[in-house]
């Protein structure tokens, strides 16, 4: 049974019937309905909200500015904030294609900054997120192999590099990375 609360306009499920997938679906429905109800404009279109976009853009651009000034950690912070805002701040019914592109674009910068500032695990997580969204370009694999190498995960780095090479067989940077990974692996195994 699903219970509907008239006041909060949210649905709930009996604890005994609650499974993980049901919980996810119920949270999803609640979030969507709350977002639609909160929307004051009766003629809303699924275009991205201008205010949100402006805020996100300003944060991102300030990050880029700091990058130019070589203030890496601050740049990273700002861009991370921009990404976070894009994720949490936007209403869920705004156009997915645009949200995805925006996030992918910003994440690429965030990843590079993370790698430069030595935050390899963060970079790895973001790279894996990007790959989950379908980005298969060679430079994604280059960055992932590099991150894994820096994290001393040589077996994983080799697997990633081999995959990158099978999708982009002529990528020289990947070939160079492969040599480096093999060298480190040989050392690791004595």
């Amino acid at each position: 049974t699903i219970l509907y609360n008239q006041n909060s306009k949210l649905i709930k499920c009996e604890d005994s019937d609650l499974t993980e997938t049901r919980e996810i679906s119920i949270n999803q429905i609640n979030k969507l309905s709350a977002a639609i109800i909160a929307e004051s404009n009766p003629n809303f279109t699924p275009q991205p909200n201008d205010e949100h976009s402006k805020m996100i853009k300003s944060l991102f651009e300030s990050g880029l500015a700091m990058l130019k000034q070589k203030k890496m950690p601050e740049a990273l912070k700002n861009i991370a904030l921009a990404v976070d805002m894009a994720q949490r701040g936007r209403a869920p019914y705004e156009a997915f294609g645009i949200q995805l592109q925006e996030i992918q674009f910003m994440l690429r910068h965030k990843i590079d900054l993370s790698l430069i500032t030595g935050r390899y695990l963060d970079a790895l997580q973001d790279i894996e997120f990007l790959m989950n969204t379908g980005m298969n370009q060679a430079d994604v694999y280059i960055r992932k192999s590099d991150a894994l190498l820096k994290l001393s995960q040589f077996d994983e780095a080799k697997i990633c590099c081999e995959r990158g090479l099978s999708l982009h067989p002529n990528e020289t940077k990947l070939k160079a990375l492969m040599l480096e990974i093999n060298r480190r692996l040989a050392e690791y195994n004595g």
Partner: protein
Amino acid sequence: LNYDYDETNETWPFFLLTVLLMIIVPLTISQIYKIFLQKDKNESIEDEEKKNILSKLNDKYTSNEIKEFRDIFETKKDSNILSWKNLIIIIGWISIAILIQRINSNDAIIDAAKGIFDPYEILGISGSSSEREIKSAYRKLSLKFHPDKVPKDLSESDKNMMEETFVQITKAYEALTDETVRENFLKYGHPDGPQSTSHGIALPSFLIDSTSSLVLVIFYISSFVLLLPYFVSQWWNKTKLYTRNNLHVKTAGSFVSRLVNYKPSQIATVDLIINWLSYAEEFKLFYPDLTPEDFENLLQDHIHNRDSKINGKDANMMKFRIVAKCHTLLHGFLEVCCGFRNLEMAIVCMDTFKCIVQGIPMSKDSQILQLPNVNEEIFKNGSIDEIHTLGKLFTFDNEKIGKILGIKDEAKLSETLSVASNIPQFKLLRADFVVPGEEYVTPSSTPYISIKVLVRSAKQKIIPTEKFPTDLLKESDDFEDLKNPFASMEREPLMPTSFAPKFPTKRRNTWCCLIALQKDIKILQTPYRLERLSLSNLSKDLDKRAIKELGPDFNPEDWEIGFIKLPLGQQAPAELGNIYMRVVIKSTDYFGADLDLTMMMQVRE
């Protein structure tokens, strides 16, 4: 129209005899064969165990508790002398003897046998006599028995007897020579044509007497209504309840539902798999009173080397039973993963297997911690640079290794080093897609994967592929091998008993081979289990070769090259191009014994 039962007990003994012989003779032959064959097999296994150092050390390091467990739970090999089968055989032969005796003492049967017309016997010649011999026998006998030649002073009855005999002889001769008579004889068994025949039922009449008929009816009813359904239902339940991999149907269902609901954002870990395993129906059937949480705790205790207690009572025996069952469960789970084409999950499943077999948690130091006598604290706090692999460990001399691992006792150190140097590792020499008899992989052909590896010890230095001449790495051109390329794998020796003292039963290492497409990292087919591979490179003059290799004395012929052939379940694509596949070969028992490579299939005209 009228069928009589066997009043004179002439026919039913033969019927019963035939039935008994049909059952007892094959049974006896198979038992004798089994007894002698089993003896040979047992002897060869024992010999092998004595020679293999890992088996010996495995025995040495197995705790007494586990040995106790094995005594209780391992099915004893049926004593070959006393068993139900042997009893049945003995009873069967006794019954046969009794029956034969009865037949021989039954006058009615003997009389009937006398009535059988045997021309060869009458003429006194063997069954394979030639025509000339038949003619000469006839002439001799007819001279003796011809009414005109018979001596005159014989009595009337004697004369009649002689006459009868003469008639028989003539009939016999004609049966063998004259066309029509011969035809009669062959058709009806008697030269005079069809004799009187009677048809009846070869069952004794006492069976249908009033009292015994009741017993018979009861017997029929009970067997059809009670026994038959009982046995059929037992058999049906057994087949229905367990899958092809010996996994309980409910367990398989639980694994499937876990994988269906698995979120891709979740990272698969060994702890997750152990949690899933704890819901297995097999565990519930063993110990209906325990919860999945209890089972999970038992498994985690095993991995973290803790004593188990449930409700304050010692639970180690339960733990061993649960752990031993994991072998079947994990193989079943691996098949389910392959069904869902989930490579990541399959790899974690194999890692879980290793953790359970060796009884250690998954960590970057697992390769070292799987060795016996290692002092974990000293090892982890050691100041020497990063040592996580067996290969790295062997770059130090023995004394240094002792310090690194925290082993002070010389004998213990030597045993630890034996184990470490006998764990088989792979060095990849060559990997190809091969179509038997062809030079390339052509469109829509059926290639198989052929991997040449050097099975080596971590103690030996890596030998680069270039040191091996290409003809040692070539596919065999032998016709038999082209017809069935996988037959050569069956000729390899079975893997010896593994070093796994914490695992409740003795086991052998296997490698599970997974093949996936690099394009979408999805598994292509069910896993291939590699159970046979020669480990001769590890045992043959280990130390001597460790010095010889890479120097000017290096002889590639000293080393045995392992051929691993993996059948591909699908054909090559119809279009030309390149396809990349990843082959993952993971050991069930040892850390550091795996192989992970990417291969390219070039489809050409």
